[in-house]
């Protein structure tokens, strides 16, 4: 049914990749007692965050991300994605970096770990960043940027 309604969707790949992300976060939680929140761990790995996970744990997790991506790309028929222009990416990156630190999390920490924990803070944060994401892309569409 989904294939008929949205022929471009990939629900199977989405589900499999999603389960892998959830298992990865479960390893972090049950193995190390921590949230697999990428923005927090990235800030910690680079020394930007003054407190949080031990540096070694943060650095190992963050280095794992490109390693895992690289492994998948080398064993599947992965094709390079299309990215926005550098200036747009710089603006987006600045806002994402500042916003995720101010809001204490991103899609992984609030979205995956927080929602599954039924954390009220994460439910609100996820609702807000989804809503502002929808609104931003709607404005981009109106402005003819898509």
């Amino acid at each position, binding site marked *: 049914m989904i294939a008929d309604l949205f022929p*471009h969707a*990939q*629900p199977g*790949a*989405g589900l*499999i*990749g*999603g*389960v*892998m*992300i959830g298992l990865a*976060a*479960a*390893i972090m*939680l*049950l*193995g*190390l*007692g*921590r*949230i697999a929140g*990428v923005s927090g761990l990235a800030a910690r790995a*680079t020394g*930007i965050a003054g407190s949080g996970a031990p540096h*070694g744990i943060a650095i190992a*997790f963050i280095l*794992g991300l*490109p*390693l*895992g*991506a690289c*492994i998948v790309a080398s064993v599947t028929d*992965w094709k390079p*994605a299309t*990215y926005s222009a550098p200036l747009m*990416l710089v*603006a*987006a*990156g*600045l*806002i*994402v970096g*500042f916003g995720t630190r*101010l809001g204490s999390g991103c*899609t*992984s920490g609030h979205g995956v770990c927080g929602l*599954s924990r*039924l*954390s009220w*803070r994460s439910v*609100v944060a*996820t609702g807000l*960043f989804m809503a*502002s994401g*929808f*609104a931003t*892309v*709607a404005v*981009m569409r109106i402005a003819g940027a*898509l």
Partner: protein
Amino acid sequence: MRIILALLSGTLFGAGLVISGMADPGRVRAFLDLFGRWDPTLAFVMGGAIVPMAIAWTVQRRLESPLGDKAFSLPETRGIDTRLAVGAILFGIGWGLGGLCPGPAIASLSLSPVAVAPFVLAMFAGMGLHRLFTR
């Protein structure tokens, strides 16, 4: 042991990001594009990720300590404040603009380093700005 677990978690996470389509800004934006050719794939990613984590949380409540460390270090679940709300709204704007969030951007450094570098460098600059402002 702790480093190996963290590396394993990060590697599995990065692999999942690529397989799921989260590392493709076009697919992310198609999910956020309610008035265009909407792509529901990311809802499946989120659903798929939440199931193992929901089980993990029920296991966590029965554990005295994590399997590979001394104690749990978990954030608060309550207390909504302006910082949380403004931060989340800002993050959503950046996510829509670039089609990238922190995990996929860092993971993509091994796939398209030149293309994602501006985003990742600016993201760390944004995190640094936050640190400066909240001293």
